[in-house]
């Protein structure tokens, strides 16, 4: 009895130490930082400063549009691609590898590449459009299109992530049930929505959660392509946090934004966790 307890302690100790050092300590120090300035403890003043900042409403709106837009688009695209794979017999493995390529490219690299391609004066995209007689948009350099541009680049980068998980999900479905549905006269549409999708429910939810959390804290692409500009048209909370902490030397304001981000993530994942529980109940 004692032997097995010592055994348990022995084996969980490394994990406990790692969690304390890498998760708990940074979290606690961020919380402490968020409630003080170099002058001392200030209560919620840092949060108040964040909320009353010029342009904060716009930054918040951008964050919501970016997160929901990028999540929804990459999920729908990834799902369609994964479903389409079901009907492809020849060269499927090759196609899957090709679709996964963007995942292997660092966001910094794809950001720089897209930034150059979409440059209105020098980039290949607008040059090509011009050949077709179309005056291309300003992409990342116009306030009306900058946010959409970074969303599209983020979707390009992360659709393969949704695709890979959902593809594996489709492959794991019982083919007997799906064939039975078809034999019974269900249309492809009915089969997808009434047989396959319910079976994939948990996988879709988990993919959505991961993708949502990822889009919520997307940094590299936005910072490389627009730095949050022009104006504040593509500035999200995470960009603001970075600027506050590392450009304006105000780590306490950065910590306050960090706490806000953490709370939103925790609330939304808790909600999803409950959805998963309902399923098993």
């Amino acid at each position, binding site marked *: 009895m004692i032997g097995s307890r010592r055994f348990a302690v022995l084996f969980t100790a490394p994990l406990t130490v790692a969690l304390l050092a890498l998760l708990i300590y940074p979290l606690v120090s961020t919380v402490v930082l968020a409630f003080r300035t170099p002058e001392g403890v200030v209560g919620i003043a840092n949060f108040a400063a964040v909320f009353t900042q010029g342009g904060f409403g716009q930054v918040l709106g951008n964050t919501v549009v970016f997160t929901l837009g990028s999540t929804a688009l990459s999920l729908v695209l990834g799902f369609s691609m994964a479903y389409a794979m079901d009907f492809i017999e020849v060269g499927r493995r090759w196609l899957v590898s090709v679709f996964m390529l963007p995942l292997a490219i660092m966001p910094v690299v794809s950001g720089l590449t897209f930034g150059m391609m979409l*440059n209105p004066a020098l980039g290949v995209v607008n040059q090509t459009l011009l050949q077709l007689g179309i005056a291309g948009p300003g992409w990342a350099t116009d306030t009306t299109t900058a946010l959409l541009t970074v969303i599209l680049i983020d979707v390009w980068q992360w659709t393969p992530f949704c695709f890979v998980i959902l593809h594996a999900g489709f492959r794991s479905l019982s083919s007997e049930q799906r064939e039975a549905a078809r034999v019974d006269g269900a249309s492809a549409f009915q089969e997808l929505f009434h047989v396959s999708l319910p079976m994939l429910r948990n996988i879709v939810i988990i993919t959505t959660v991961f993708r949502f959390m990822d889009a919520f804290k997307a940094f590299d692409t936005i910072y490389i392509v*627009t730095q949050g500009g022009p104006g504040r048209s593509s500035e999200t909370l995470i960009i603001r946090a970075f600027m506050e902490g590392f*450009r304006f030397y105000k780590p306490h304001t950065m910590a306050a934004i960090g706490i806000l981000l953490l709370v939103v993530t925790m609330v939304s994942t808790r909600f999803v966790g409950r959805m998963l529980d309902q399923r098993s109940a």
Partner: protein
Amino acid sequence: MNRRKFLLTTALAAGVLAMPGALARAFAQAPADAKIDWKQFDGTEIDVLLSRHPWQESIEPLIPEFEALTGIRVNVTKLPEQQFITKVSADLTAGSFAFDAFMTQFYEAPKFQKEKWTAALDGFLADPKLTDPAWYDWDDFFPGAREIATIGGSYADRVAITSEAQVLVYRTDVLEAAGVAVPTSFDELLAACAAIKEKGGGVYPITLRGGAANWWPLYGVVRSYGGNYLDAEHKPVIGSAESKAAVDTYARLAQFAPPGITNSDWDEINTAMLSGQAAMFLDSSVVFGRLEDPAISTVVGKVGVAPFPAGPAGPHGNSHYWSISMAEASQKKEAAWLFIQWATSKPVQAALALKGVLGPRASAWKVEGLAEEFPQQFLDAVSTTLSTAVIPPAVEQFYELMDPLRAAVQEVILGNETAAAALDGVQEAWNKILG
């Protein structure tokens, strides 16, 4: 044989034959003549972080000479300017900055000194074991450059390495084809842009920074219109009528720039000139050496330089002195000081001047052979501009102040807001930040 080698060879030959006065002086300045032991840190390795800049491009090939002189190995890391600024501030804040010496800009000085991120250099400068004062000759630096050393307010933590003035660079052939004279005022500049747009054969009239660092060239325009960012007491005056008129002019000029100007910073405006895409350039004079370099430029021999144009309050181009500093966290400060001393010494500054990077030392502007390297027109334009040039105020919250201004200028350029409304917003934001 490139020009520098040629000059060096002829100088050596001439020296051996006759040893005329000027050359004898030049030899007396060689690093080996400094009365210190350069080899005292033989075998040490130092890490140096540089921003991509003509100064970096020109000094890197000389670093092996320093390594041979001292036996110190220099590991150079270089980054594009925006990434450089980001890395330095991020690493210093996080306490993970791992370089011994690094390039610095004076806007950050108050913050860097408050946090003790940069080391005080006075001690090294005064130590006869490390510095030969007669050979190094501190008073040879321009007064403005000496001021930069202590601009942080508490101690000397930087040595100027460049002097740059905001000038008007233009394509002689395009201006001639469009039939316009070289602009001397902002009204003439706007008129010239309109003429080039009409008759310039598809070349964009001007290239300007509209991206994250648009506040740098804008400052020269604001001062020339009689406005300012902060007053002498560091109170915001960006909302003044003069500042608004200046931003309005800047935005009108921006309409003549290649599309995508809100993403254009130093690299992009350089590319626009080097590739022949744009006809005029209202930014730092250091671009000139690059435009005349056939290895990277398509417009060699077609480039003119004029003093900064005058606004209602006269011509007041922005100016800049990049500097080099030592990290307080460095464990090899003395070896790093030898590097800083060497890099800012007379012979190295002279060699850099001959490569097109004019330094903060008076002697570097009088180097033998400089008149061959630079047209008199360039030297005149820069020195005329420097005589009335301004530098932005250095305050601790500098970059925090520049962010809302940057955003507002972009909104005005894109026509989403008027200069008046946008700058009222900036004034309010600055009052709050400094209040």
